[in-house]
């Protein structure tokens, strides 16, 4: 695989002005916290990279839209399957974030969503590199996961402690080196399941690690679950 450049990296911040990033008030109102975090981070990342509409939008989420799923499920059980509002069902679809970013950037090109637990982001990153291999010049790739009160309670009951915070991490990848390029990824290798680790990891952990390496300009051989590559900061 050819080297791929990272021209912007974002981590969701509560301080962003969502009204600027997502001007449509109705759209904003319908979005759950997770969808808002993901869409805002994706759009912020594209803006920082100076990309209007990318050649590919690739999103990941280990747990998906838990708040919306929980809302729909709670009403379903409480109302005994009657008089259900479809909005949380619609928004609970895993590809909601990728789809909303496509609508907001009028991007009719490649659009994909990976949902493989702690390895969701790795899969999305691999697809981003495959997309560049297929001719994409600009790719938006990211993960969004939310630690809801319910997930926190359930993990606690499973005796799993979560060390990280939730959030959204997005990266703008380009096939060519740009002036704003922050890092380059090369020597990509796939790792089989046997080598994958078994301990619990919150799905955003690897994206967070990649974000921090880039922020701190740390060169590294990243050995993520199922994917190994060299990261060189520029």
């Amino acid at each position, binding site marked *: 695989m050819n080297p791929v450049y990272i021209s912007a990296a974002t981590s969701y911040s509560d301080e962003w002005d969502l009204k600027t990033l997502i001007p449509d008030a109705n759209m904003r109102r319908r979005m759950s916290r997770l969808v808002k975090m993901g869409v805002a981070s994706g759009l912020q990342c594209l803006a920082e990279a100076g990309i209007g509409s990318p050649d590919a939008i690739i999103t990941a989420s280990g747990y998906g839209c838990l708040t919306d799923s929980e809302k729909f499920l709670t009403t379903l059980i409480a109302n005994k399957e009657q008089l259900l509002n479809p909005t949380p069902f619609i928004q609970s679809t895993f590809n909601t974030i990728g*789809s909303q970013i496509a609508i907001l950037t009028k991007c009719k090109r490649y659009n994909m969503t990976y949902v493989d637990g702690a390895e969701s982001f790795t899969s999305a990153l691999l697809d981003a590199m495959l997309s560049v291999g297929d001719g994409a010049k600009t790719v938006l790739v990211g993960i969004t996961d939310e630690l809801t009160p319910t997930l926190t309670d359930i993990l606690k009951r499973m005796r799993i402690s979560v060390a990280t915070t939730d959030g959204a991490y997005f990266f703008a990848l380009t096939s060519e080196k740009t002036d704003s390029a922050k890092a380059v990824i090369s020597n990509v290798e796939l790792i089989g399941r046997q080598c994958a680790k078994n301990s619990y990891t919150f799905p955003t952990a690897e994206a967070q690690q990649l974000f921090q390496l880039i922020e701190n300009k740390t060169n590294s051989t990243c050995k993520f679950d199922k994917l190994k590559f060299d990261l060189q900061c520029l």
Partner: protein
Amino acid sequence: MVVISGMGIVSALGIGLQDNLQSLEAERVGLRKIQNFATIHDVPAGELPLDNRELKRRLGINEAKVVSRTSLLGMLAAEEALADAGVGDRSRVALITATTVGGMDLTPVFFADFMADRTKGRLRYVRQHDCSNSTNAIADYCHIDGFTTAISTACSSAANAIMTGCRLIEQGLADCVVAGGTDALCVYTLNGFKSLMILDSDRCRPFDANRKGLNLGEAAAYVVLQRATDAHKQYCAVAGYANANDAFHQTAMTAEGQGASEAMLGALRQANLQPADIDYINAHGTGTPNNDASELAAMQSVWADKMPKYSSTKGFTGHTLAAAGSVEAVFAALAIEHQTVWANIGCETPISQQFAPVAHTAKCAVRNVMSNSFGFGGNCTSLVFSKI
């Protein structure tokens, strides 16, 4: 060239390739009233005539073990596909599986108790909620040790899994990939589609002028993808694929089906084929007013007045959501293998008299087949399969 070297399928038409083929040939519909879980909704669905206990028995899994139906269906179909392809050593085989349901068939069991008291609810029923559980269950059962992942782009998921599998092979990252999808019927999805008011209370009528909506279904289907030079068996080549987005609305397609025509044109381009080279389209054809009108408009924008034979097989199986793309990829490959096009069950008064879908399963020359899968979120994927 990437070829399909093995196939496996479980759907309302039966367990395994042979049962599914025989049902398609005999125009035997798999829709029935839902029996495997309690619901107030009296709608037809493409439900497998086997309960979880019977599925576990066939898989050699202890009956007492809690396993999501999504995983059970997936294990059966993926193992059939690998055995069909004659892949013995699975240490480097990759798995790309698609699902929208994941463990959501089990989660409500946990949640009903949890809602009342947050210290209650058996954890074994929520442990499988996230989609990676079915990925790992299938990989473990089939002894797959290569790269594995899961895709969820609503109703286009499995088509995207097949596309990703091909790209992994073409870019030299894998030699053998099992790709497809699995989705079990469950009360959550049933109510979701009910709340959207797009379920037909009778059997669905894809491409009929008076269609009222879709029937849900459950299924798992996988294809084994290999380079032609590595394959023992070759059903057909995956000649082209394209993924596009309608970028219009979360649950509705543009009237002219822009994303759909982008996907179809992209797949033709990649296959290096002209529209006239396509002999048969296995359409997405869900039976909803919006999908079928948009899809037909998109097909007409590509083929104008020279439409190839087309049909939706959802009148047989119901809409199997994340599995639909691979169920229909299997039907497309069977169309090529048996030189047969499948009936569009349920259409009495076609939307377009001039371009009516295939009325009955019939023998005919089938060299190139297009398979369409479109979903919520505007996700549109088309695949092209070619006779070798």
